[in-house]
């Protein structure tokens, strides 16, 4: 996708520039309404996927399905390699999938990449959700609330990793499906299912800061094994799930994303338009004045607006 590269190189600067101008002009003296976000804990979760340690056993897929009550089948059936022929994405039946990629350094040991919700630090889905059905929790996880969701699928539009999926075949009670970092298991003191079952601990679970440190150490210790890039450290403002690999991430079908948070520009515009309702009320007052002035000018004015000069303060509830 060429235009993505373009976005990354030439365009980002311009994009941000225009964004800044746009946002600044709309912000009206930076009076932005900040959402009451829960601050993230310093001990929030981080998970490092070491793609060089993953052996593609797909046990995580089985464990994930089992933990989420999805039809999982026999654990043995997951040793079937033929699923790797096609690139797969997380979906309604599997909240996480593992894909195989060629390893030029050693063809006998292909690279395996697990995909699931990245649990962004600044999640676009949470910002987008019309009813706030998606929550960024203090521990770093992003969870979906069945009781709130109206099924508008704006989260799917917003997500840069194309993670949330929707139960298209359901008319009543369709769910948005995505990794919830096994919130139920964790509330019982257990680890997420995929992390617990992984034989190689290719999924390193811990505090984000510790895990990041471990990732940097690994890269430092084995500069021949890893490329010097932790995917998810800075992408879209950082993610809970992070990846290290022996080859470039765009070759592993990871979208090349910038460091700007996905909801950043959108929220800046949004809060610009609505800065404490100042712009709408100002516009209301302006139009009211205009209406009054034009009516005053016309002595033979129409019979419709009979009111006095509209008092702006009375319309605050708008």
């Amino acid at each position, binding site marked *: *996708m060429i*235009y*993505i590269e*373009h*976005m990354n190189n030439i*365009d980002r600067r*311009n*994009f941000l520039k*225009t964004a800044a101008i*746009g946002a600044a002009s709309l912000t009206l003296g930076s009076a932005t309404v900040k*959402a009451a976000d829960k601050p993230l804990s310093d001990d929030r979760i981080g998970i490092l996927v070491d793609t060089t340690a993953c052996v593609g056993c797909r046990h995580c897929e089985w464990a994930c399905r089992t933990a989420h009550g999805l039809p999982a089948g026999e654990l043995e059936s997951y040793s079937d390699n033929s699923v790797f022929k096609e*690139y797969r*994405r997380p979906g309604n039946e599997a909240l996480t999938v593992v894909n195989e990629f060629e390893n030029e350094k050693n063809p006998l040991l292909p690279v395996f990449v697990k995909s699931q919700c990245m649990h962004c630090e600044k999640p*676009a889905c*949470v*910002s*987008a959700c*019309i*009813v*706030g059905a998606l929550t960024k929790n203090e521990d770093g996880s992003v969870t979906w609330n069945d009781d*709130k969701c*109206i*099924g*508008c*699928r704006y989260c799917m*539009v*917003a997500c*840069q990793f*194309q993670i949330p999926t*929707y*139960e*298209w*075949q*359901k*008319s009543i009670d*369709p769910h948005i499906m995505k990794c919830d970092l096994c919130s139920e298991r964790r509330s019982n003191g257990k680890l997420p299912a995929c992390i617990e079952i992984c034989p190689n601990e290719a999924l390193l679970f811990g505090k984000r800061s510790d895990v990041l440190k471990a990732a940097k150490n690994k890269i430092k210790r084995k500069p021949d094994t890893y490329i010097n890039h932790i995917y998810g450290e800075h992408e879209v403002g950082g993610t809970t799930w992070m990846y290290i690999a022996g080859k470039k991430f765009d070759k592993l*079908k990871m979208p090349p*994303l910038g460091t700007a948070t*996905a909801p950043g*520009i*959108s*929220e800046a*515009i*949004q*809060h610009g*338009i609505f800065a404490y309702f100042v712009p*709408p009320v100002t*516009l*209301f007052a302006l139009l009211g004045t205009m*209406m009054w002035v*034009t009516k005053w000018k*016309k002595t033979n*004015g129409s019979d*419709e*607006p*009979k*009111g006095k000069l*509209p008092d702006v303060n009375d*319309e605050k509830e*708008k």
Partner: protein
Amino acid sequence: MKPLPVKKNFFSLGVIVLAVLAVNGLAFLSIRFYSGLGAVTNLDNQTPWGLWIGVDVAAGVALAAGGFTSAALAHVFHRESYHAIVRPALLTAMLGYTFVAFAVCIDIGRFYYIWHPLIMWNGNSALFEVGICVMIYMTVLYIEFLPIVTERFIGKVNFPGALAAFNKPVDALLKLLDRGLSKTMFVFIIAGVVLSTLHQSSLGTLMVIAGQKMHPLWQTPVLPLLFLLSAIAVGFPMIIFESLIASKSFRLKPEMKILSNLGSMTVPLLGIYLAFKLGDMFIRETFIYAAKFDYTAWMFLSEIGLLLLAFLMLLSRKTSGSPAMLFTAASLIIAGVLLNRFNNFITAYKPFYDTVTYYPSIGEISVTIGCIALLVLIYRFIVIYFPVISHEKK
């Protein structure tokens, strides 16, 4: 010349065709409510929004902009001569927004939770803003329409049989309502304009969050401004379009004086939009994508081309004089804005893991056409029974 009910038979050949289309749409719609969105639409996990959001909702909102532009023109700026077009435009807006709300209802997965945004707020969400604004604006539109209802019934309340006793009190109630409304109407009119500018622009903010998933030809932080400007630009052409169709259909004399004035007023509005649109393209240097001349580029170019053509047509004096030319120009603008909304929500949406390119299914198209047909039928019904269109009494 006063707004009066059009004395015309409701049924005609066209009405039957429209009714068939509407029934067809409703048939597909029943499948959607029985077996889910997947059964009717071509939507999938990579393309969560399709024709219903792109055209029914986004384009629907844009094309209903005639309501607030005409209200601003006639009431806020007190151009009395334009009062003749206010009521048809108001009706279009009211029906348009009803249609939008209906489209939202069928597109969201849990239609029975449509009321959730009223009590569950997310101030960060552009969609929340659009949703709330559309809900309030729809209420305002219905309130603005109320005087037409009271006008129709005051002095004519005539319940059959035993209910006749209620005739007088209902009539009195209507009179009270009418008086109250005429005193406070200016609040609703201004509110309508404010709400429109808000959600027309927020509709543009919607796709900004899609980030790199959206093609750079369309993805820009000034999207909200472009959406607002294009909505304002399409307002008058929409009035021209429907007024000319209505007068043709009801064999009335077209209000050419008003319409040609609206046509010439469209020129600067459309010019401003085009200037911003092209300016944005040149500032972000995205013309390199337009110069590729692939499918996406052609969609972009035709969107611009339609509007540019209409702009050039309207510049000439001949256009505003001839109903046919004016109609063509207005149709081009409507098509251009429609295509723009379609492009923004569908063509531009190019997700990274795109395995199947989205094309609207027969079901989606049927439902969209069916809804539009239904809309036209209701419009015809209301125009025949309520004082909406101004014309000489025959």
